[in-house]
């Protein structure tokens, strides 16, 4: 009876332990929040200046004799980045249109087409390139660094970058006609 009436000295978790727990929890929440934010962001948005990246090129698909491309070296030209893969059936729908557009713009010297091969195997990629008679520069997205930067949602996706290195348009999914490609490139050449 007397026991319950005696006030007990208050003892809690040490302050350092509380700090550690809170720091850990806040850190965990921050990581989850960043992940969710990234997942909801979608692809890189038009208006953004695209950072430099390096794309190694398959032999036989070099650009001006160079076996790798640095995006910053292409400033002053319109750049069309096309993410594709040999296992991607929708990519086949636009392959002929992209190649046709390249043959039209190549003589102007103002447009560069770059094919970025996403999560693919080189032998199959070469079969695909040969099958569709593709001649513009193409190379593998090593360690998926470029696709992660652009936050692509799948293939095919095509990014139109103007002469100042600013992203102007994103095409998610295949082009259904060459006019769609003209409609994006022509205004950037003016």
């Amino acid at each position, binding site marked *: 009876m*007397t*026991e319950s*009436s*005696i006030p*007990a*000295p208050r*003892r*809690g*978790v*040490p302050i350092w*332990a509380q700090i*550690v*727990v809170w720091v*850990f929890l806040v850190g965990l929440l921050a990581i989850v929040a960043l992940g969710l934010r990234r997942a909801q962001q979608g692809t890189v948005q038009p208006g953004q200046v695209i950072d430099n990246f390096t794309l190694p090129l398959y032999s036989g698909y070099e650009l001006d004799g160079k076996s790798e491309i640095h995006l910053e070296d292409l400033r002053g030209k319109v750049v069309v980045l096309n993410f594709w*893969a*040999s*296992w991607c059936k929708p990519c086949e729908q636009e392959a002929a249109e992209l190649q046709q557009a390249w043959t039209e713009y190549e003589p102007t010297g103002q447009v560069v087409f770059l094919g970025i091969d996403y*999560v*693919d*195997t080189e*032998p*199959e990629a070469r079969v695909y390139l040969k099958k569709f008679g593709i001649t513009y520069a193409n190379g*593998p997205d*090593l*360690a*998926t*660094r470029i696709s992660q930067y652009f936050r692509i949602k799948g293939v095919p996706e095509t990014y139109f970058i103007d002469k100042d290195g600013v992203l102007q348009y994103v095409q998610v999914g295949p082009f259904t006609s060459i006019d769609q490609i003209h409609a994006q490139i022509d205004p950037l050449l003016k």
Partner: protein
Amino acid sequence: MYKLKFLQITNYGLLLAVLAAFTFAFTNQTIVFAQGPTPTDDEVNRIAKQLYCPVCESTPLDVCPTEACRQWRDLIRTMLTEGKSEAEIKQYFVAQYGARVLAEPPNRLVTYLVPAVAILLGAFMLFRGFQMWMKPSITETDAADVKPAQDPYIARLEEELKKQK
């Protein structure tokens, strides 16, 4: 006479044909040995199950039904035929597609150290927490030492209770 000559020519022809067949068979056999035997599905899958294709997350490569994964398995088969080791094949895939394709993370100290430290820290804090909850705030001996009369309120309370009895 002519018949005999004809038979001799036929015999030479047969001999040449047999020699040519042997040469052809031997040459072909040599090419097969040079390339190495075709790996079995089990040999391919032994490596494939240690890899995950980024396109089909959460599905090991050995059971993934997509076209992309079929191509990856074919590539593993080709590399095995070329005599590449398991480590070399995995290294190639990491170089091409990044470390996230590995079922087990790369053997780095921090990969194993951070979870271990977090678990130990959590266990220690749980232990401390339980220890504090279980420990009585004051022992019976301590309680017995307290003289009720020392507290005027308790003394009065007990006095009132005695009166009621």
